């Protein structure tokens, strides 16, 4: 990843390395982007507090590790147990958090002007950031690396076990979500709610519960993203949700907001752009690329890559 290795690498292997790194962070962006896009798809609301939910997910996973006293890589049953505990606490906690945000912050405002909901989202974000800061402090917290530090090398390109874990986790979750949305009763109800909530009510579909479940589901995906983010960067900070949330939002817009496959593609494309930018231009400018992409999109192609009528594909 670093400069020292890239000096020694052939251009081809350097490219491979940047692609692998970009693909990894892109997979995390995609997981978070799904939450923005699902909520927008169902009720045309951009949940700007979603980045903070992701950050809380990272801290909940950290909490599980602190409770269990994990400080180093694990294997076998211990690894499986710790992973389960992290996922359970992060996904369960964020699922409830997402549910609660919808119930308390957005549902009472469903008929209010858009700006009201936006201001509320900012309020929720500040609340979550400050709550985490008070509980865990304002400085970076180390996130124990409990995945074994296996790595494979090929002509200077290296790939870690953690990267593979991130790819597989994201891949499996995205396929599962796509199946849920296209083939299950809940998924059909989500898409129908996006298209005509009152017609849904006449059929007995509990629209409010479907909307709350959409928030909970998107928040669960963000929580997994948070855990993977902590593992990948080895530290977490209470304002990580802001920047990463904005990047994931960019990914969602890039793919066409409201469009689930679009969020996946958008996340990966943004991650790879960022990886290439960091590798070939300057890693200090890494965070700027996402916003160049966002501004460019909003100006030239606001419907995103896969988008025309995306708002109701959920």
């Amino acid at each position, binding site marked *: 990843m670093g400069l020292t290795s890239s000096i020694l690498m052939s251009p081809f292997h350097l490219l491979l390395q940047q692609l692998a790194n970009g693909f990894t962070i892109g997979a995390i962006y995609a997981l978070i982007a799904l939450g923005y896009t699902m909520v927008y798809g169902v009720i045309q609301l951009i949940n700007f507090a979603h980045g903070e939910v992701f950050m809380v997910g990272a801290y909940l996973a950290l909490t599980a590790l602190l409770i269990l006293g994990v400080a180093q890589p694990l294997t076998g049953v211990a690894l499986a147990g710790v992973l389960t505990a992290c996922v359970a606490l992060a996904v369960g906690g964020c699922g409830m958090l997402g549910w609660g945000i919808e119930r308390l912050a957005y549902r009472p405002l469903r008929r209010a002007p858009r700006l009201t909901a936006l201001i509320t989202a900012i309020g929720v974000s500040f609340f979550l950031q400050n709550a985490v800061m008070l509980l865990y402090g304002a400085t970076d917290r180390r996130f124990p690396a409990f995945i074994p530090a296996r790595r494979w090398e090929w002509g200077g390109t290296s790939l870690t076990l953690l990267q593979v874990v991130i790819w597989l986790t994201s891949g499996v979750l995205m396929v599962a979500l796509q199946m849920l949305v296209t083939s299950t009763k809940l998924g059909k109800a989500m898409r129908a709610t996006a*298209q005509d909530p*009152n017609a849904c*009510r*006449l*059929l*007995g579909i509990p629209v409010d519960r479907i909307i709350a479940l959409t928030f909970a589901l998107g928040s669960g995906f963000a929580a997994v993203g948070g855990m993977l983010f902590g593992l990948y960067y080895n530290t977490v900070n209470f304002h990580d949700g802001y920047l990463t949330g904005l990047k994931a939002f960019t990914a969602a817009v890039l793919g066409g907001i409201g469009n689930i496959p679009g969020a996946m593609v958008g996340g990966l494309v943004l991650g790879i752009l960022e990886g290439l930018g960091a590798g070939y231009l300057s890693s200090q400018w890494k965070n700027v690329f996402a916003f160049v992409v966002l501004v460019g999109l909003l100006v030239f192609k606001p419907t995103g890559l896969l988008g025309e009528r995306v708002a109701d594909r959920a």
Partner: protein
Amino acid sequence: MLRLDNVTAGYGTTACLKGVTLFVQAGEIVTLLGANGAGKSTTLLAISGLVRLSRGAIALNGARIDGLPPEAIAGRGVGHVPEGRRVFPRLTVLENLQLGAYLRGDQAGVAHDLAWVFELFPLLRDRRRQLAGTLSGGEQQMLAMGRGLMGRPALLLLDEPSLGLAPKLVQVVFDVIRRIHQAGTTVLLVEQNARLALAIAHRGYILEAGAIALADTAPALADNPRVKAAYLGG
């Protein structure tokens, strides 16, 4: 089965129902007729819970249902095929029908009713994988009715099911209403086509400016000079 007592309701501050009283007995077809803007659709929406009452009461099988959320009223066996079809345009025909059975757990019963809906509207079977938004207006009307039937309602509210259909399709729709009724469903029918509605119904109500102006058996209404002049074209 259904009873509305002095129902006053509307949108915002203006009441467009001003004390509607009517009843529907189990096994009946009752039609609600009236000019544009008389409040027919609003009456049905009040029954389904999408429009709130400001006064009055609605009871289903003796129990108050006004104030319940629409999904709970649907859960008590009230089906509503709304004005303007309101199918889910970017879901397939089959998905629309499946969502009609959202509240039901009996897989076998749902499969049976799906077969029945396809028998009533064979065209829907051929197009079951097509997006509902790509159906013609008449086909969408059939889908909306089929979707309403998939919930196996005890009471079916139909809001202008023949609106905008070619005469042949109008016949199909009224035949289906007859068959639904024979299968044991009670029907409250709002129609522009007063002649056909009175031919199929047992009783009828005439709604004028948000209040019931006339209530009688269907044959008596069809013979009533006032009704003839206003709704049956003389």
